[in-house]
């Protein structure tokens, strides 16, 4: 972090306090609390249906929590409750400072627009009106995520699954966000593509110094990318701590099960 005035920099980026979310009788998240600092990568692991995605959607302002607060340190509004902002401001914060990588690239991309337009879209959404500049930055990002720059005007439909996912990652990083949400970014990809993508993501997030919350059910992904880990079961956080600590010395029964169920080859 090359900050000019290190003393006054507020290192807190995100703070979740006692977040609950229920859908009628079903409780998806119960009393989730954690903090995230700038440049930190948090992994959320847990079994299917443990409330990981719901938690992510609540934090990213897409779902109103039943109770609890999501505090975010935005450039425009400072440190404050995301749901205390007006819808307009919340959408603007989301547009300017967040990225959201979906599990299925079809959810995160505009399939009718070209790959280049998909990557350039966040720039247009944030007010850039110079075609040449957008084109250049899009080409740069195509190169950074190792996409063939000659296919910049191809439709995402003509890209492979791994390429679509890289397109989505470029699209979510081009506008220089401070926080990126990733919902199982490598799910549905074959293992060799997963490895390359993980490698790429690790390089990018370290280079850009951005914070990320990565939801995954793959312990390997968490081990490789995350600084800290949050283990969820039935909507509750059962264990949290440094990734290596949690994975090497799991305390909770569920975490022990999770860690021991990874196939050793």
């Amino acid at each position: 972090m090359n900050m000019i005035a290190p003393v006054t920099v507020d290192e807190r980026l995100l703070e979740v306090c006692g977040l609950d979310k229920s859908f009628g009788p079903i409780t998806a998240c119960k009393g989730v609390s954690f903090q995230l600092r700038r440049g930190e990568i948090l992994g959320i692991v847990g079994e299917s249906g443990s409330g990981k995605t719901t938690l992510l959607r609540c934090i990213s302002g897409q779902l109103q929590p039943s109770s609890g607060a999501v505090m975010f340190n935005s450039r425009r509004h400072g440190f404050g409750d995301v749901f205390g902002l007006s819808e307009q401001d919340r959408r603007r914060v989301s547009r300017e400072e967040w990225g959201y990588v979906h599990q299925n690239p079809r959810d995160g991309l505009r399939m009718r627009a070209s790959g280049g337009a998909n990557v350039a879209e966040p720039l247009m959404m944030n007010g850039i009106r110079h075609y040449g500049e957008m084109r250049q930055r899009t080409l740069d990002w195509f190169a950074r995520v190792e996409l063939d720059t000659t296919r910049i005007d191809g439709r995402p439909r003509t890209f492979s699954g791994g390429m679509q996912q890289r397109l989505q990652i470029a699209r979510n990083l081009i506008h220089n966000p401070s926080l990126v949400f990733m919902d199982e970014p490598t799910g549905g990809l074959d293992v060799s593509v997963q490895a390359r993508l993980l490698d790429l993501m690790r390089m990018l997030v370290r280079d850009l110094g951005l914070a990320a919350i990565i939801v995954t059910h793959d312990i390997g992904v968490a081990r490789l990318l995350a600084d800290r880990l949050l283990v969820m079961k039935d909507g509750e956080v059962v264990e949290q701590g440094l990734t290596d600590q949690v994975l090497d010395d799991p305390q909770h029964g569920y975490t022990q099960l999770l860690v021991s169920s990874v196939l050793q080859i």
Partner: protein
Amino acid sequence: MTARMTMASNRPRGTYNYAYLDEQTKRMIRRAILKAVAIPGYQAPFGSREMPVPYGWGTGGIQVTASIIGPDDVYKCIDQGADDTTNAVSIRRFFARVADVVTTEKTRDATIIQTRHRIPEAMLQPGQIMVYQVPLPEPLRHLEHRETETRAMHAYEEYGLKYLALYESVAAYGRIAGGADYPVLVDERYLMSPSPIPKFDNPKLHQSEALHLFGAGREKRIYAIPPYTDVRSLDFEDYPFDVQCWDEVCALCASAESYKDEVILDDAGNRMFVCSDSDYCADRRQAGHAGPMAGHALDQGGKPEPLA
């Protein structure tokens, strides 16, 4: 209430109400028009009625006209710029019958001009009203299918997405292609689809002295550009907005400034370019201008056909 409805009750029983629509419907549409004029570029919803023509034939424009027309109005209707096309003749005849108005083909004589594809070449005057028949009022629709989302985007002025279409166009063609229905920003606030008029006509909307009313019957929306309102066509800093131009002059009236239609004459590659605005072209020919094909069999002399 009864006083306002005298016009309807003076007519003999068994005929349609004045200007076809019933008085309550006209009042409802007038309220929508007032709202649209008060918020330039905003799409005001209204309860569109069944009309005696199918959707897509100008039901929105006909309802707007029916709501604002009075017996002392002079009515002009054009389709593709021409007064003598089937649709224009039918709609003009319709209002001549149900609203007892004088109809004209002269742009400067008309008080209400109904159109789909063109704005007349002649400069519009204060007091004139343009009525547009709009097929798709929502400029963001093909980019965002959810109505709830497009409404939010209009409310919060989130128009970055519209540039996606322009970006695609520049990437594919090296320029902002799209010749018609070119998006505009009205009064630097609302993004608006100017109906399928060619972008050639977009600059005429800027600071126009006439009132422009847009009616979309199927989509049930009315929007407006009041007189003297800023209207800006979207573009990129390095790809500025421009309008179509032609190397040829009009084959009949030799106009170099007007919007031209290309007419294929035979299967040997012969073609001609003529003004799409038939009234403008006829005026010029009467004033003595003659293009390279003046006097040709296709040149009818621009005389108006008699109305029933």
